């Protein structure tokens, strides 16, 4: 600094104690009063710089006798150290204030922000389907698949459905119009996947087959000609009806909650024997009886039964060695129940407002 060499005379008389204290007091006042880092630096230069009284006096100490020099030197050093730390403290204070002011100026009302990162939503049928898949994967099952355009053999014949079975009529199933009158149709159920799994020839089988199926139903609030089912299929040695009961109980509790119970009652399907419908305690009222379950406390979920020997025979599996069970139910209906959707047709409208709520 220029004034360090030019400003000081270097010949000032040694100070008296009163002058030292007065200079120190003036310095304290100036440092405290500094309102910015720049002002602080200027005050520090004036009161602690080379040409400040304290430093000038310090340089003149040589003119004193040794005792006096030690005494005055100590006083000057004390004051200087005190003022230096005062300047440090003030600098820190000012820096904090400056940062606070800067942040205050940067304020933002977060509720005025309108931009959203909007994720897309999985279709509710996919959500239910994946949840079901996860339950069965957790039980050690594989997820099996089959084509939607299916042969009459897989969809009916191998499933022990006689040629005159009503489901085989053109009234109930969609047949394909193909060259040479080939007997192909849109699968009316996921059960043909059973036949495909058996034909694969790898036993035992623990599988579920979710997928799209087709029936000639007029679209209304409860029906669509295109809908989704999931089929469960287990073939192993010594599989029993009791195993079926236990398996249904297991997955029903996994899907609907621990408190849910299930029960079976006799029914008929050509590809199972004994056959049953299975019901679960109403998910709305828990079995007390309400509007959803028609006051009975139970909701019919799907069909099930022990694999009919004819199905094994059709696919070359020995029904004396192997036994199994199958069960199936509608995925869309489950989604309908769970979300209390009033009309199944909303599922295929694809109105984004509907898709994004679920």
């Amino acid at each position, binding site marked *: 600094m220029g004034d360090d060499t030019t400003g000081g005379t270097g010949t000032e008389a040694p100070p008296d104690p009163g002058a030292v204290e007065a200079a120190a007091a003036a310095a304290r006042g100036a440092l405290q009063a500094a309102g910015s880092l720049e002002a602080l630096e200027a005050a520090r230069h004036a009161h602690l710089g080379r040409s400040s009284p304290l430093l000038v006096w310090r340089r003149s100490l040589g003119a004193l006798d040794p005792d006096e020099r030690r005494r005055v030197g100590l006083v000057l050093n004390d004051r200087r150290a005190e003022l230096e730390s005062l300047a440090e403290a003030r600098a820190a204070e000012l820096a904090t204030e400056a940062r606070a002011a800067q942040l205050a100026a940067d304020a933002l009302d977060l509720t005025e922000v309108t931009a959203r990162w909007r994720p897309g939503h999985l279709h509710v049928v996919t959500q239910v389907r994946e949840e079901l898949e996860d339950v069965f994967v957790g039980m050690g099952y594989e997820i099996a698949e089959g084509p939607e355009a299916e*042969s009459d053999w897989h969809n*009916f014949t191998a499933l022990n459905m006689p040629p005159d079975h009503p489901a085989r009529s053109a009234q109930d199933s*969609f047949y394909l119009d193909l060259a040479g009158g080939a*007997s192909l149709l849109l699968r009316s159920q996921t059960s043909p996947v059973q036949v495909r799994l058996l034909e694969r020839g790898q036993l035992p089988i*623990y599988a579920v087959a979710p997928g799209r199926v087709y029936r000639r139903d007029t679209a209304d609030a409860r029906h669509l000609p295109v809908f989704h089912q999931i089929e469960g299929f287990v073939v192993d040695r010594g599989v029993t009806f*009791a195993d079926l009961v236990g398996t249904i109980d297991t997955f029903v509790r996994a899907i609907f909650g621990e408190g849910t119970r299930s029960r079976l009652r006799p029914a*008929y399907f050509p590809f199972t024997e004994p056959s049953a419908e299975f019901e679960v305690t109403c998910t709305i009222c828990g079995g007390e009886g309400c509007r959803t379950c028609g006051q009975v406390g139970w909701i019919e979920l799907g069909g099930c039964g022990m694999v009919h020997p004819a199905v094994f025979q059709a696919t070359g599996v020995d029904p004396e060695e192997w036994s199994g069970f199958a069960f199936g139910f509608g995925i869309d209906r489950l989604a309908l129940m769970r979300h209390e959707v009033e009309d199944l047709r909303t599922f*295929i409208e694809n109105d984004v407002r509907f898709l994004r709520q679920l």
Partner: protein
Amino acid sequence: MLVPLSWLGDFVPLEAFFGPGGVPVTGPGLRRLTETLDSLGLVVERVTPVPGDLPGVVLARVVEIGPIKGADRIRRVLVDAGGNEPVEVVCGAWNFGLGDVVPLATVGTTLPGGMRIERRALRGVTSNGMLCSSAELELATDAAGILVLERGVGDGAHEAAAGAPGALALGQPLAEHLGLRPDVVLDLAVEPNRPDALCILGVARDLAAMARLPLTVPTPQPVEAGPPAAGLARAEVAAPEACERLVVRVVEQLVPVASPPQVQRRLVLAGMRPISAVVDATNYVMLELGQPTHAYDLDRLGGGGIAVRLARPGEQLVTLDGVERHLGQLTLPVGAAAGADQRQADVRHECVVADLDDHVVGLAGVMGGAATEVSATTTRVLLEAAAFEPRRIVRSARHHGLRSEASVRFERGIDPEGLVRAADRVVELVAAAAAAAGAPAPLVAAGVVDVRAVARPARRIVLRTDRLNGVLGTALAAEEAAGCLEPIGFTTSPLPGGLEVTVPSFRPDVTLEVDVVEEVARHYGYERIAGTPRRAPGVGRLSDGQVLRRRLRRLLTGAGVDEAWTSSIVDPTVARRLEVRAGAVALANPMVAEESALRTHLLPGLLDALRRNVSRQNDDVRLFELGAVFAARPTAPATPGPAGDGLLQAHVEERELVGVLLGAPGDDASAAVACWWRLVDGLGLDPDALALDQPRLRAGAAAAEDRAGRGDGDRAGGGAGEGLVGDLLAGCHPSRAAWIRQGSGSSGRCVGALGEVDPSLLATFDLPPGRRVGWLVCDVAGLLATPRRSPLARPVSRYPSSDVDLAFVLAEARPADDLVAVVREAAGDLGEAVAVLDAYRAGDGTRSVTVRTRLRALERTLSDQDVAAFRSAAIALAAERLGAILRA
């Protein structure tokens, strides 16, 4: 099936459920009953209480009938209802006369249908009630006139009703007079494997067995005062394959009467229409015992008898409903076409009943002919009870669109050993009806004519106890199984390790051991079989394809795209708008023309969803769908070939696609490109194995190269092959779309397509002009077959990088990607990233493309020489390969 409980109570003591005192319309007893039926698999779908007291409806005798001035359709009627004064009513029916006893609904009465009877004045006459028809009282369906309970003196041919005229107590409640009780009608869902349960007796048998109650099996004992039936009528079976047994009874000296009110009421409650005593008796027995029978006017049967035979082509019959039926060959069910099932061949001809002059008089098991119908003038009746072959009846009923109560029972299978009992019960009821109406007793011929065309011994099945318990997971002893089977008509005898079970003739559905197992289970009680845990021995996991699908879905939702589901059955004209080349699979039996083909593409369905959303002011629409599309194989063989998979593969190509429609404001082809590379990254595909191939650009480039005399075979190809994948570009903006290929150039296998939807196609979906819609479609199997990024980690350099931007003048027809590839090649190992930084078209018609290259070495700091070498290599290579000049 509709089951009135009072009828069920004829065979099983329902007091066990309700206690004494009749059928309550609600309450725990009824609930116990319905739960028992449910547990038997006879599911109660509806419970309809039927009030039986008809309050306010009383007996009244007509004492005066007079005209009303100015009215020619209504009359003033005075009736004596047992009170001090006659009651004046206005009536519009004309079927009664002086002295007749009729039901009077008094003022204040509410009829079963809900109509409330008020006092009212009609043309100056006060009506103090209403005379009622059977239909108004819901006793029967006859609404043609007032229900006449007794004819007045001298009024009819047979005035002697039950007791002498005047014996009825006027003012007595009608319900009391008829012996009506409140009733409950159960609507049971009877499964196809339960032919035995399609009648009241069968339901009673199951119920009695389950509830451990006695079953009363009816044994009709008609009074046979006539000569032997065999002398009056003949019966023949010429087609034993269609009719295993035929039983005929004859009744003479019939007088036409109506059925007693109780019979009519039961028929009505069970959903049938009372017609006449004879017809009602046949219907009543069908409902009660499950055996359909048919009554012919014997005098109209040529040759005095019937024969069951197959129809001959060209034969005709006018059925009871007045429709002329053309007989002969039956149409085969769709599923049984073309000899796929050899057993079908022998059921091509329908079964008919002919008279002995060989005229067809009935469609066997389905409907009788009009010419031989029992009428008011019929005095001699031939009653037919037959066991027709089920499959032929199914076909016949379906062929003629005539599914009747009778055909349904024949379809399922009736009890061939129950024919005589059914015929006996019919004539017993006919005689009872005459007696109830006060008519002379008909003369029932002695015995039946019984033709057994096929002897069918009782079926015996061995039930192994091990097998029984092996299927059910129970530990039942043979005696317990017998205890389940015997009450429902099976007989059993012990065998070592099991039972020999004799199947009752009314259970044609039970043919296998497992059928017997089911019957044991049903009557043991499904709910008593406790569940056992069974876990799969292996580890459950998703397949690679299933994992890919899940990742696809999550990547797309993560990108803000919602999942849609559109129908796979579409309007075939839409695919034509897209100019799809693959042949759509048409449905043989669509419900409507707009939904008559399988989709070949996902785009139209999603565009339709977009259109619907836009029309509802939902603008921010991005949708994806994962689903199957279908095409008919152009190479399909002319003959169907073998059943099963081969057949399927030969005729139909089915492929799963994922389609992404980006229709939010500002979306366009670049949104589709951005989405695609996001999928590549997120699915872990190797980006170097994939390239965009833009046909329009390529066409230009090929032309340019040809002019320069540098034809490039690799670029001369086109399209993406046959079938559904070859159509993925359909519907795209011609100059803003590209194939996605595995490998480079146009030779690589096509995985998908992306770009923008053709604006003219958008217009056909009512989308406004100028709106751009991005579109990405991929073949899911193609994605699955695309090489993955290496799973091995490579070290990343810690040394500083150097970015080099090079701007080239590039021909319009050159994809920028080619330039990137050239620059990447020039950068070699030092090239950390190469990408298009900027592209613009100058006023002079040239295009400038700037490529930024980040150079970095793995184990040292780059030198100036490295950068300079790269620059000169890139510039030289771009010029040599692409004719691209560095922009000054």
